[in-house]
């Protein structure tokens, strides 16, 4: 019999019951809860008179529409200006109270973006099944967990039964071997992968990221990669557990201690694909060929190297592809054939669950240090992913570096990643963004998003247009 993949192992370990119709009941170890997708789920429980199955399996925090401005934030929940946002945050507080769910409230130092605080607190751990009403939940797969996003009815289902009804997915291995060039980051790796497989490439599959590049990558880098698995069509992205994982997890507030730790290690050491495991699909990419990436369109697969050009629709034979590119260029206000480095920026956003951890901020600060934001750039927001990231960054003086460069240093939240709070792009504005989605209107009505790494975003802020960050670091 062939060996098992990491996904097979995690699935088997959590299988409560296989049903005749091909679906299965899968046990859920951790549910992360935020203010936008949970109110109807709690209301559903209340209407049906159902209790929570296990309150200790849930951890909540508001993140999507809490304000990032300190002045607004200082007023707590009552200080949130927008009605809907305030009601949603207040409702989360009330529901967590009523159902006994641990919550890091708006101005708790542990508050932050769900996908940042889970690993940071040791609330998400290797070998767990993790769900959240948010499609970027695959982030936690970086720890060797089985993690994916779910809809509101499933949030309610998991709250009430500690299980989900699932169909097993197929196994896909994305292997990147070799050495990354200096200036090439985990963000560039995942953007290059999506450029290669397309936004539907991982449909129906659980992706495992393997190869020397991921083995040599930091935990935070692995989170950046797994975070965007959904942009490649896969609900699940994972990396095998190794020493890097264990070093990261050890000593976090909710990580196992003492005897439990030893017991956990025993299990966690098995969390990798067997040598003879069979994947339904394997994609191999050469690390040395990856350069810093920039998206030019309205889908993450519309991406190219910073040294590249925007495609010319006339060069495209396939009529539907050609039409898609024409539409994207029209929305983005770009002309086919122009150099990526000629794209001018109005705004820069450094943050989101993809790139708002301490390593991301350090990377951006290293480029920003001693420089000034270009006059033509109207606004640069730096938004840490959690209160603890913010504190750490301030201790290291990163906030000063950003402020001295003319950037804004904000409070932890999703902020301009999805523009649910008041941080929005104006119509027609170009933004270099470290987030994960460049869809039409994502960062504000008519806004034009270009996805990049934190280093590339900082370099673009200073130059006023995209530049190859490798030239900046070498200079």
């Amino acid at each position, binding site marked *: 019999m062939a060996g098992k993949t990491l996904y097979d192992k995690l699935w088997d370990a959590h299988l*409560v*019951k296989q049903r005749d119709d091909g679906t299965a*009941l899968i*046990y859920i*170890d*951790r549910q992360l809860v935020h203010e936008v997708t949970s*109110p*109807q789920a709690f*209301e*559903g429980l209340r*209407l*049906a008179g*159902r209790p929570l*199955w*296990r*309150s*200790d399996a849930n*951890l909540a925090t508001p993140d999507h529409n809490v304000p990032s401005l300190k002045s607004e934030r200082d007023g707590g929940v009552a200080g949130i200006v927008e009605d*809907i946002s305030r*009601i*949603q945050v207040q*409702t989360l507080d009330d529901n967590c109270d009523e159902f006994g769910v*641990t919550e890091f409230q708006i101005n708790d130092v542990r508050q932050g973006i769900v996908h940042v605080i889970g690993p940071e*607190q040791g*609330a998400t*751990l290797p*070998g*767990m099944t993790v769900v959240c009403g948010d499609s970027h939940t695959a982030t936690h797969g970086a720890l060797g967990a089985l993690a994916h996003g779910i809809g*509101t*009815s499933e949030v*309610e*289902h998991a709250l*009430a*039964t*500690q*299980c989900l*009804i699932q169909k097993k997915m197929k196994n896909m291995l994305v292997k990147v071997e070799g050495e990354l060039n200096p200036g090439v980051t985990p963000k560039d790796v995942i953007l290059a992968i999506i450029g290669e497989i397309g936004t539907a490439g991982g449909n129906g599959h659980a992706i495992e990221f393997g190869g020397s590049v991921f083995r040599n990558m930091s935990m935070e880098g692995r989170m950046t990669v797994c975070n965007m698995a959904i942009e490649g069509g896969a609900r699940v992205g994972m990396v095998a557990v190794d020493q890097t994982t264990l070093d990261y997890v050890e000593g976090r507030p*909710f*990580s*196992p201690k003492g005897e*439990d*730790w030893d*017991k*956990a290690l025993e*299990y966690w050491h098995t969390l990798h694909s067997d040598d003879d495991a069979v994947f339904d699909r394997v994609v191999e990419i050469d690390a040395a060929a990856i350069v810093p990436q920039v998206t030019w369109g309205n889908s993450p697969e519309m991406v190219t190297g910073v040294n590249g050009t925007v495609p010319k629709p006339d060069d495209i034979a396939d009529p539907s592809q050609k039409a898609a590119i024409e539409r994207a260029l029209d929305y983005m206000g770009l002309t086919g054939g122009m150099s990526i480095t000629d794209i001018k920026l109005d705004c820069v956003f450094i943050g989101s669950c993809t790139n708002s951890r301490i390593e991301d901020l350090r990377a951006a600060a290293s480029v920003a240090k001693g420089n000034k934001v270009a006059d033509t750039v109207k606004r640069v927001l730096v938004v840490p992913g959690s209160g603890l990231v913010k504190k750490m960054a301030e201790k290291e003086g990163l906030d000063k570096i950003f402020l001295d460069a003319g950037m804004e240093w904000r409070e932890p939240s999703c902020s301009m990643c999805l523009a649910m709070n008041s941080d929005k792009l104006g119509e027609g504005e170009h933004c270099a963004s470290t987030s994960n989605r460049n869809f039409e209107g994502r960062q504000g009505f008519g806004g034009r998003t270009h996805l990049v790494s934190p280093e590339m975003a900082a370099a673009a802020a200073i130059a006023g247009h995209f530049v190859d960050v490798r030239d900046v670091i070498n200079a």
Partner: protein
Amino acid sequence: MKSFTTVTGVVAPMDRANVDTDMIMPKQFLKSIKRSGFGPFMFDELRYLDVGKPDMDCSKRAKNPDFPLNFERYQGAEILLARENFGCGSSREHAPWAIEDYGFRAMIAPSFADIFFNNSFKNGLLPIVLDAAIVDELFKEMYATEGYQLTVDLEAQLIRKSNGDEIPFEVDAFRKHCLLNGLDDIGITLQDADAIRKFEKNWQQKSPWLFGAMQ
């Protein structure tokens, strides 16, 4: 979820094809934090003369006198008679929430959109697909008879007219079971509560660090 056995009620019309979920539940109401209370906003743009906003007191709003659901004769209706492709468009579950909250228990149409059809069962609503010709006949009889009522008998899979005529209908056996017993997805999973508890006990022994309060 409410169980559905037999419903006898007034029939009301939604006499147009391709009624989409936007029409059933306009987007401004999706920002709500609730899943109940959507009934007063069902078909909001057709039903009222002003522009609807969440949290409005609908009893004070000016109703559109030309919209059939506002007619005296259709008040308290429990069965909605509709045309082809009812519930098309976005997947919002707010649409069946609203129809159920308004008081409808069953819907009859020549066809329903897929996701809406599924979502309806999850919320205790019975969508019944009948031949277009039969639906047409029901529309005629309903318009001709003030206070027109039908009985929907799910167990027998029959619609009964007051004159004793019967119309058979199809329904998937599993969904029928769930509706008759008031079981939603969660209810069905909870039938396996013992299996879940057994798994959990074993899992806790193996991985005790996954259990216990986070403080």
